């Protein structure tokens, strides 16, 4: 069992969480900024993500691409990602480069705008547009989630759009927008610095103070708009006309956000339904009736007042999507009627525990988990305590969660039937 993380707060508001682990001579450093696509204004979609790119274009003491070069030169790995709820930046480095990693992160947190100009905004906008083409527009089913979230959430809801944003909004981004975005969201008290690895708690916390202490905060940004919303009232089915290799059905529901005990019951329900070869839907749709090539499901782990649960099933060639859809519907309905068996619950919890062990097996996995815990739940051990929360989920709670939230009349569905 890894060491318990220790959290402190610097004078400038930066929360620092340190988890020592000396199994390998390396340290993972993550900066979690409390800004994701849910914080974006309408007409400015894709900004959080575009911004993530700009964070690698240099700062007062770092050249464009200098951040990558510096970390690569010590044999470290790094990246940044943007989701609905947050943007994170991380590097895993040999212990000897721990201070360098903190310095690089501090330099861009404090002084990014010194280096940001029209040329690198234009260039990274082109890169992001190519990212969009590569990962969304030029992939089969590539825009499925984008289309579903538009149906699942009303116009103006923080989860109505995806982090990748729209081409038109990206085109409209100007330097002023980007500057405002930085000043609003990139600040010590809107971030969590998470450190896991071959360091001592005191020394690492002191190092955080040394490198980040000189950055004073901007005014606190407004909280993200409240996304709390109940189940959909009525089911909407959309048909994509995109030519695809196999007919596929995406079903989504709104469910309570991560952190709500009902969310834990929903997570267990989806393990029972789609978790692994022995789960109900995989067993029936894939193995027994051979209607589906793959079935997958689960939740997005969103926290903004609501989360999204989904089941995706891709039909076998020659099978009918309607038959598959009927089986999906029946199995979800059964969850809402009868409690899962004791064995199903044991297997679900064991699988989820295993997922946690995988997360915990890498320094970066742990740093990210602790950052998430501190930023979203005020508790670095939030992830590590999942076993306790799951143990509290009863068979009746699973049934009730399904009955309340996974209703047949509360779905947003996207079908692909145009098989090429």
């Amino acid at each position, binding site marked *: 069992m890894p060491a318990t993380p220790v959290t402190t707060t610097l004078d400038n508001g930066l929360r620092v969480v340190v988890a020592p682990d000396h199994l390998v001579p390396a340290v993972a450093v993550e900066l979690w900024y409390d800004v994701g696509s849910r914080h974006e204004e309408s007409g400015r979609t894709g900004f959080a993500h575009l911004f993530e790119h700009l964070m690698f274009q240099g700062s007062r003491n770092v050249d464009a691409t200098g951040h990558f070069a510096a970390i*690569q030169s010590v044999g470290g790995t790094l990246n940044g990602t943007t989701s609905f709820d947050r943007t994170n930046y991380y590097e895993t480095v*040999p212990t000897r480069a721990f201070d*360098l990693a903190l310095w690089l992160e501090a330099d861009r947190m404090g002084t990014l705008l010194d280096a940001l*100009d029209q040329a690198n905004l234009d260039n990274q906008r*082109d890169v992001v547009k190519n990212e969009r*083409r590569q990962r969304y527009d030029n*992939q089969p089913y590539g825009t499925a989630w984008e289309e579903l979230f538009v149906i699942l959430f009303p116009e103006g809801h923080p989860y109505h759009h995806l982090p990748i944003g729209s081409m038109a909004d990206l085109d409209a981004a100007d330097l002023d927008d980007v500057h405002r975005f930085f000043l609003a969201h990139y600040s010590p008290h809107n971030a969590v610095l998470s450190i896991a690895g071959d360091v001592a708690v005191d020394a690492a916390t002191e190092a955080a103070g040394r490198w980040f202490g000189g950055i004073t905060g901007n005014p606190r940004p407004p909280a993200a708009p409240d996304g709390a919303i109940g189940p959909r009232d009525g089911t909407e089915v959309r048909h994509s006309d995109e030519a695809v290799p196999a007919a596929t059905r995406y079903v989504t529901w709104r469910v309570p956000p991560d952190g709500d005990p009902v969310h834990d019951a929903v997570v267990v329900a989806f393990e029972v339904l789609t978790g692994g*070869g022995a789960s109900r839907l995989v067993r029936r749709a894939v193995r027994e009736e051979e209607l589906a090539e793959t079935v997958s499901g689960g939740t997005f782990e969103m926290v903004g007042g609501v989360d999204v649960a989904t089941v995706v099933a891709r039909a076998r*060639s020659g099978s009918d999507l309607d038959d598959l859809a009927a089986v999906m519907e029946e199995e979800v309905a059964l969850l809402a009627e009868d409690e899962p068996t004791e064995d199903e619950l044991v297997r679900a919890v064991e699988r989820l525990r295993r997922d946690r062990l995988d997360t915990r097996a890498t320094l970066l996995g742990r740093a990210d988990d602790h950052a998430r815990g501190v930023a979203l739940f005020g508790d670095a051990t939030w992830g590590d305590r999942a076993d306790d929360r799951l143990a509290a989920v009863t068979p009746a709670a699973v049934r009730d969660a399904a009955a309340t939230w996974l209703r047949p009349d509360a779905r947003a569905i996207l079908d692909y039937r145009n098989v090429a």
Partner: protein
Amino acid sequence: MSPQPPRVDRPDVTTAPRPDVSPPQPWALPPIQTQAAPSGPTVHLLDLPGRELVAVAVLVDAPVTAEELAKAGVGTIAARALDEGTENHDGDSFAAALDRIGADWSPRVSFGGTRVTVTVPTEHLEAGLDLLREALLTPTFPARDVARLVGQRRDRLAQELATPAGKANLALRRAAVAPDHRASLPGAGDDATMAALTRDDVVAHHRDVVVGAPVDVVVAGDLSGVDVVALVERHLGELGPATLPPTRPDPLRLQSGPRIVVVDQPGAVQTELRVVRAGPDTHADDRAPTRLLAHVLGGPLTSRLDGVLREERGFTYGVRSSLQTFRRGGLFVLASGSFDTPTTAESLRIIRDVASTLGAQGPTDAEVAGAADYLAGVIPLSLETPQALAATVAGNLGDDLPPGHTTEHLARLRSATPDEVRAAAHDHLLTDDVVVVAVGDAAAIADDLAALDWGEVDLQPAT
């Protein structure tokens, strides 16, 4: 000149000078203890105190080259069917048994052999070994499940072929590899070989190629207080001594270039490009220098290719160079990436120019040092988990290398001189013997690609 931004001062922010970084320490894989179990399998142990998961990889010397070309993929189906029915379980109950111990089960067949890996929380090591025993020794290959796995493989392949990257990878094998070599087809077979495959083929493959082949067992995790060799003997001893000789690798053979294969994808907003030539295999003297070279050419972001194509021109989300090995022989993928359709030919021209300039002038000393620092650092970082370590050791064994070869390879990456890397650049980048695959909108790109005058352009219709 671009207009300068309105200056937003944050005078309150003080910054510090860049901290120094001490020189790297030597690195080695964790100690590997190798010994033969009394009945036959060779056991390789990596004790990793404090780890919560333990990985067991069983590597059978039954590689894809043991498959007839017409039955390509039979080994993969046989490996995937191992847990679909055994003396004690049907497929459903086997999956449930894995879930109850939090096990991850992963079969894989490659040029290195047939490998089944089970990863479990440490306390379930013995239960995991027992499921391995059952699957490897008592598979029943139910006809219905084998047929389903074949059908799923065919559907899966159709999915892969619907993505630009999947299409490009398949077209690349066909365009670059000699058509009678196993590497011309995917490891898991193609639609034609799958369509022809029968349960009898699968049963025969297991009986004739897998059973009796030499076996290595790699166990990585917290092994304190456990007599792992005795455990392996108890559960996997029945695999017995090898009755088949080690397989003979079939060195990779390639078709000649230069050639450009355009796979039409009408209306595509991007073109998926692959540029390849012959590369070193894992045993070659110049493998480490060539790996450094590949990093200089197409490593992430700070490389020569990304420097121009992504950071300067914005034509792509990223382009990469890599080495692919096939137990004997290899491919040097000079460039792999997706490019905005209108910039396709210009991107390929830049790739050619960047590669030939690097070939003629060689990388700078600083580039070589940077590549060595990078690779010597990230390789250890990628070997954090028991699964990764077990896979690496099994991979070395599959390449007929010592289990701990990664330690030597890393030392070689560190010791390679700039002149050695420049020699590799000269050998690998100053040739026109290159095959290009471009998956994209032929109407928009084919003429411009032909105008590059880089070998004949072979236009393949949309599929």
